[in-house]
């Protein structure tokens, strides 16, 4: 009798555990603060879906990109959900490496996604990744210092040229201009591309001939090098987004043009010493308004090689839904909800109140136009990158030359010459000139 009871109990527990056999999802993601919050809050998702277990693979952006690209290109199947950006999503979507999101429920409100972001993640009319957060670029500036010199935030680079010497004379120990200088297609080139665009330049003409030695590029690089030398911090060539953020937050910069997503932290007294002194403005324009504000979104996509499409879709939809945004607001506050994905976020009064930069961020994203990032005709899309697979290598190389010009190791002309040659070589090898 005793044995029978034991056997029955054992049998029951085996059946029960079989019923709870869990699907494991491997999620590859970047280690920025929004993702970290998502990782923490994903326990709510697991609670609502007891049959799904989430395994997190968190890496730094460059490493993540390499890892994920290697895996998806060789159909390695290591991941079920990927964090990718507006650079990869269209390219991979076109190759059918990603599962399209064509069966979203009405409650998801896919039309509520901010249009440029949604377009940036689509190819051939299909959406290949759901945006987790979106950003553009604008100007961070120190209101107190600008009041001190009696200036308004510059709307154009000409106005910026006027105010920089005044800032240098007025504030000791504060560098008037902080800009990205660390080489990388997503680092210094992200900013530099917008400068070239707004000075009237473009990467390639309609025949894919590189344009790096045109006057617009010369003008942009000269402006950048001269002004960073005169008004920028030392070591600028190793300052990426992070380092500049740290500099601004510790009060060392008067003006910084960079990602809107940093605004939440600069305005937070816990993370920043200048939370009460910072103000925001639209990024300055040059000779043309095109391409002065970049567009980027980190989004969640599903590789076609996954064996758990339904569960992966369930997670991705949850993480980019209105409910999730409200969840973050409840647990961490409205200041840190993932910005830049839905117009709905910007209709919430609590958000507008908590984030003084909200309206400006929305405006910047809506104005960013990856299709017309240059005033001249272009064969590519992308504001701060060129949406072709070869761009990673090209952008990094050119970034290195820009950094070399910045530190004075190469003249502006030489840097552009080398960049032009490299780009031409790469495009040739990739077969763009076969016709």
């Amino acid at each position: 009798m005793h044995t029978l009871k034991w056997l029955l109990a054992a049998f029951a527990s085996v059946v029960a555990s079989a019923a709870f056999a869990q699907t494991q999802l491997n999620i590859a993601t970047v280690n920025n603060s929004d993702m970290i919050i998502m990782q923490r809050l994903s326990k709510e998702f697991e609670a609502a879906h007891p049959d799904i277990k989430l395994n997190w693979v968190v890496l730094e952006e460059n490493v993540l990109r390499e890892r994920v690209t290697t895996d998806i290109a060789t159909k390695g199947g290591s991941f079920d959900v990927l964090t990718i950006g507006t650079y990869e999503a269209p390219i991979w979507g076109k190759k059918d490496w990603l599962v399209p999101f064509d069966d979203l429920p009405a409650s998801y409100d896919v039309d509520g996604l901010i249009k440029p972001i949604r377009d940036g993640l689509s190819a051939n009319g299909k959406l290949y990744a759901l945006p987790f957060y979106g950003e553009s670029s604008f100007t961070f500036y120190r209101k107190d210092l600008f009041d001190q010199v009696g200036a308004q935030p510059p709307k154009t680079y000409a106005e910026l040229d006027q105010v920089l010497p005044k800032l240098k004379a007025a504030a000791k120990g504060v560098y008037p201009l902080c800009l990205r200088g660390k080489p990388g297609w997503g680092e210094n080139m992200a900013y530099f591309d917008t400068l070239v665009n707004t000075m009237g330049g473009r990467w390639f003409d309609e025949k894919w001939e590189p344009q790096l030695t045109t006057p617009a590029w010369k003008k942009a690089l000269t402006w950048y090098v001269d002004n960073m030398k005169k008004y920028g911090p030392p070591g600028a060539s190793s300052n990426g987004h992070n380092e500049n953020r740290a500099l601004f937050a510790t009060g060392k910069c008067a003006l910084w043009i960079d990602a809107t997503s940093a605004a939440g932290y600069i305005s937070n007294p816990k993370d920043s010493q200048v939370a009460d002194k910072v103000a925001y403005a639209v990024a300055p324009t040059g000779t043309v308004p095109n391409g002065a504000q970049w567009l980027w979104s980190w989004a969640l996509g599903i590789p076609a090689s996954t064996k758990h499409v339904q569960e992966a879709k369930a997670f991705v939809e949850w993480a980019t839904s209105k409910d999730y945004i409200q969840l973050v607001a409840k647990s961490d506050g409205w200041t840190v909800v993932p910005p830049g994905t839905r117009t709905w976020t910007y209709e919430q009064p609590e958000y507008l109140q908590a984030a003084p930069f909200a309206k400006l961020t929305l405006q910047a994203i809506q104005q960013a136009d990856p299709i017309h990032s240059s005033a001249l005709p272009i064969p590519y899309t992308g504001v701060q990158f060129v949406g072709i697979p070869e761009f990673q290598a090209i952008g990094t190389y050119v970034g290195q030359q820009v950094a070399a010009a910045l530190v004075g190791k190469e003249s502006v002309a030489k840097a552009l010459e080398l960049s032009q040659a490299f780009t031409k070589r790469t495009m040739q090898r990739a077969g763009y000139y076969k016709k």
Partner: protein
Amino acid sequence: MNRALTRKWIWTVLAWGVALLVFFPIFWMVLTSFKTEIEAVSTPPRLFFQPTLENYVAVQQRANYFSYAWNSLYLSFGSTIVALVIAVPATYAMAFFPTRRTKDTLLWMLSTKFMPPVGVLVPIYIIFRDLHLLDVREGLLIVYALINLPIVVWMLFSFFKEVPREILEAGRMDGAVARDELFHLLLPLALPGIASTSLLAIILSWNEAFWSLNLTASQAGPLTFFIASFSSPEGLFWAKLSAASTMAIAPILVFGWMSQRQLVRGLTFGAVK
């Protein structure tokens, strides 16, 4: 007498000066792990401040340190044992029964390490994918054993060569022809050499940061993976990275300290005749 004492003090000051200087960056890292993020990057850099444990808490919350640490232990020690088991017999043969080809073989073994891993990533990745070894601990263990094998062989070779032949030949005279007897004679003599070789192999595996990132996903990642998730995100991270790194090097540092004493204790064999 006094001269000797003064000498001792001079050495003490000199040696400790160098040691502290060399150790300083690590000390600074551990110090930073107790600062808040803002303090970590502020100038002037502060030596005295209000310490906090918030970074360690945040690190542990975000990623389970213990599962990564366990993977690191398993991989480092496991691969070293495997490498030793394969290497000791081979090195014994090469050191004591050298042939014309021995030097070439050694050089060839070492040259297998000349290929930068980056150049061979895709072929290996595809092989591992087909063998279903991606994100499997044992797969990574095999890789580590194989990439450390040349170094283990080379170092063991040079340590074995230091063993005085007279002792072995005396043993052989006594009839110890069988492989096992020679092992029982040889290994104790070469133990310090084997110990330092093992230490080196363990450290190399512990710090290996290319295959550990590329061949794993969520299950088999060791501490190098853990650290990679803390470096260079958007935002301030140096305090947290310092905390994560301190947690990552603590076990190996403790182990290194303990095995150091073994090495020192065993290093009198040269004087024993």
